[in-house]
């Protein structure tokens, strides 16, 4: 059904999208928590920064990544000299680009859920002997689960669809950075490539539908009979 090249592209997309979303999740949650719960100077600024990848065209984001993480860039130079690591032309670079593009969506979704938590339940947990930390893990986080799941779905879908920042930052290298959207782009550049485009586009749709179904299943599993509002 799929050629082995197509399988490779799908596998790479899954790897890039999966790693991007899972690695971003804790950071995004921390940011969502900060923005939802804390008042500090520079909060609006942080909020703005988080939204940036949404506003700035992806190619510009990719270009900024190149400027920062490229061999001449400050971060790139530092990574290279301290860890001998370079993200250039690597799938890890593609994951970084995808993660940054997915970040605003993930933060917003989780922030909405965190803001909807009944904080008195956290107080109740504290009187029952839970430290702030324990109450976070057993009460706040589970109650924010709808947002976390929404963040996973949105983030994964966005990562799977990421194109502009990726190709600008790490170019379009088969087997390393050529994810589904980049393969689709290549096909679109060729007159008469529509059949290939359709085929690959349907593939990405199938991937994200699978992610959706999985997340709905998780929600349903988590919700069995419970409801958020009690007395």
């Amino acid at each position, binding site marked *: 059904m799929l050629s082995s090249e197509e399988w490779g592209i799908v596998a790479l997309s899954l790897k890039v999208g999966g790693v991007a979303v899972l690695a971003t999740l804790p950071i995004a949650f921390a940011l969502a928590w900060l923005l939802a719960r804390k008042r500090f100077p520079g909060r609006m600024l942080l909020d703005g920064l988080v939204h940036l990848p949404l506003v700035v065209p992806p190619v510009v984001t990719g270009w900024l990544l190149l400027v920062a993480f490229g061999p001449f860039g400050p971060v790139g130079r530092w990574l290279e000299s301290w860890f001998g690591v370079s993200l250039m032309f690597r799938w890890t670079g593609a994951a970084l680009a995808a993660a940054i593009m997915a970040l605003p969506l993930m933060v917003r979704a989780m922030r909405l859920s965190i803001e909807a938590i009944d904080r*008195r*339940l956290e*107080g*109740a*947990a*504290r*009187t*029952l*002997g*839970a*430290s*702030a930390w*324990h109450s976070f893990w*057993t*009460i706040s986080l*589970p*109650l924010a*689960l709808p947002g976390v799941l929404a963040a996973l779905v949105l983030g994964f879908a966005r990562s799977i669809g990421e194109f502009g920042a990726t190709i600008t930052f790490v170019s379009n290298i088969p087997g390393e950075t050529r994810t589904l959207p980049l393969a689709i782009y290549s096909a679109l550049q060729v007159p008469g490539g529509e059949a290939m485009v359709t085929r690959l586009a349907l593939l990405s749709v199938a991937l994200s539908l699978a992610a959706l179904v999985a997340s709905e299943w998780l929600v349903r599993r*988590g919700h*069995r*009979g*419970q*409801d*958020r*509002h*009690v*007395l």
Partner: protein
Amino acid sequence: MSFDIDVERRLGDRSIGVRFTAGAGLTALFGPSGAGKTSILNMVAGLLKPDRGHIRIGDRTLFGDGIDLPPEARRIGYVFQDGRLFPHRRVRANLLYGHHLADPADRWMALDEAVDFLGIGHLLDRWPHGLSGGEAQRVAIGRALLRAPQCLLMDEPLSSLDAARREDIMTVIERIRDTLKLPILYVSHDRAEVDRLATQLIALDG
């Protein structure tokens, strides 16, 4: 002397304050709606910070003199006026939440015993959502007792229970008061309840 409380706190445009010391046993807080009873319990529990004053229970200072223990360090069992059950945990997990966190050596009540006199054995596998008002209230009482507290705060714990169940629970409260000798701060509007349980009565006016 079990309670030595002297607190003050502004809420909106009014000021809530109380000052009393009480001996061992059950101290009832009495007063009209809005007098500040719940706010005082919240201050003792560490959920509301007094603007000034001190809170001492037995020989422990919970608040004042530069001390402000976090709620989890106060070793208090609090039955809230509203149930405040955890909606994402079944009744059993609600009951055991604090129990598991307590030092086994400090525990003085087992799940079975609590379930028994509260009559909630058939509810253990249910979600809080769908419990009746009185059922939720009983689970909330159980959860506070099972947390192995060294002091109890009870905010109208029996308000929506029928007479028979109320009797069962009062018997247990009496036992806790007399045998375990835990200091109890108790809010109720029911004269009969207070007359029977209270060692001491603190009146607040609104």
